[in-house]
């Protein structure tokens, strides 16, 4: 089996994830896209492990990554819920309370 096959799949998955991160609005969908990206990583790790070394280091790291992803998702969803409580929505691009406040500049100029 050619090594290139899983690698290309990983690349495509990763880029689909990137697309999702940039194109989707709901934070939960963003999290899903991140999962795709992390899976691309795992695919790479497993494929490389199988290709050359075969000492299961890659697989171990893949397992770590899965765990890590779980931790991230857990905290992430907590943050999402918090966001929802505060804002009433979970759209990433609509939470803009913290943007630069232009009226402050005007206020400063006035004094």
């Amino acid at each position, binding site marked *: 089996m050619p090594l290139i096959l899983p690698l290309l799949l990983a690349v495509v998955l*990763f880029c689909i994830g990137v697309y999702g991160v940039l194109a989707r609005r709901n934070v939960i969908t963003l999290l899903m896209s991140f999962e795709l990206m992390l899976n691309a*990583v795992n695919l790479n790790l497993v494929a*490389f492990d199988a290709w050359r070394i075969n000492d299961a280091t890659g697989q171990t790291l893949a397992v770590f990554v899965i765990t890590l992803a779980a931790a*991230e998702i857990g905290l992430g969803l907590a943050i999402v819920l918090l966001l929802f409580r505060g*804002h009433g929505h979970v759209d990433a691009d609509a939470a803009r309370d913290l943007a630069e406040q232009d009226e402050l*500049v005007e206020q400063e100029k006035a004094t």
Partner: protein
Amino acid sequence: MTLTWTDWQAIAVPLVLAIGAVAVLLVDSFWKSASAELRHTVVTLLTSAVILFGLVFVWAQRGGFKPAFCQPAVEGPAECSFVFEPLTAGLWAVLLVGGLGVVGLSTYRLLASDVPIGEYHFLLLSALTGATVLAGARDLATLVIALEVVSLPSFAMVGLRRDRRGSEGAMKAFLVSVLSTAVMLFGVSYLYGVTGSLYLTTIANRLTGLDPDLGRVAFAAGLFVIVGFAFKIAAVPFHAWLPDTYVGAPIEVTTFLAVVSKSAGVAGLLVLVTAGIAPDGSHLRTVIAILAALTMTVGNLAALRQVEAVRLLAWSSIGQVGFLLAPLAVGDAQAVVGYLAAYVVVTLGAFGAVAVVQRHRPGGLLTDYRGMVRSEPGLAAALIFFLVVLAGLPPGLAGLFTKFAAFQAVIDAHLGWLAIVMAINVMIGLAVYLRWIAELFRLPADDPFSVDIETPAVAMISLCAALTAVLSVLPSILFALST
């Protein structure tokens, strides 16, 4: 494998920190009978004790060299996951001092009242655990996971006030962080694929003399790893989350982000660079240099017209990171650690002063600081001193000499263009801080500024000022940290 005594010694500090974290959590959770004040005091003392232990340990072991979690390698020396060496000691000292400062800043009645104390200190200690591990990590798996241990608790802390702004800040930081982790891991997977190892030394060995096609992949992989760290330390163009998050978070957490979280990122990057991912002459160093130039320029320029104190500090910290990246790009650990140390102490002080003012003037505008030299001369003098150190002018010799070391590193590495960019940025940076200093001297438009400052804050700020003063008189301490 069996853990040897050396292994335990090497990871003693992170271990104690982790245990301390759990202990703090337990104390807070199960001692509900105590008053809030008492509980807060005990928790603070416990946390401080743990961190102080770390500092004492670092001081005691400062000259040692202890590789841990080692694995006999197929060829060459043993591969180790973790190394305690002078560089680690220096980074730990910086990180622990930063953590201690944040704890001091979070003492009773200084910490925002709606932040749960136990969880806050637990998360703080967890992140510190991750940071200390990160500074000693010598394999990619540990590096990545330790970095996550720094990041995730930090974001939890950002949202810990559980309000609208905090959640937004936490969300932004979190999203960016996850993306960066993904990118970094992607890079790690390729590095693993190309070299077949996760140990930094082995990777560095195998990276030399690669086939050009593989070399290109390895380069992209290294780039991705560096980009991942660049997200964490908010290097331009991966910086945009930082001001929003800094503003959204409670100010103590902002301080934590600016001091510990950022230092940890720098520490990780430093480990990567010095351990050989980006050896001398590698184009990755050029990439870091480009990042440095971009970061300092954009950070300082953007800080130029800020009207909020915290946001100004946020942008200026981006600028400072740019300066940090410059010696990093040439692998001068001594200069990086020195810079980091001065930056940490001064940032702590500056944020401390801002925290004191913010509690009386929640708007946090620069105009709130007007007339402070008259009404609060001591606080104003301290704040001016910190700002001057950040700008790198006398009397802030600590700042001056750390910048000087950065310049020296860059010049010695023949990066003339970067040095010129740095010189220009010294000017822009000065302009940033001067605006603030000028506000302090201006006569207030309305009621004169006055605050009642609690003893912890006074102690904290005085300590920072004193430490900065000592470092200004004897800057050699800064550069002795990592040697």
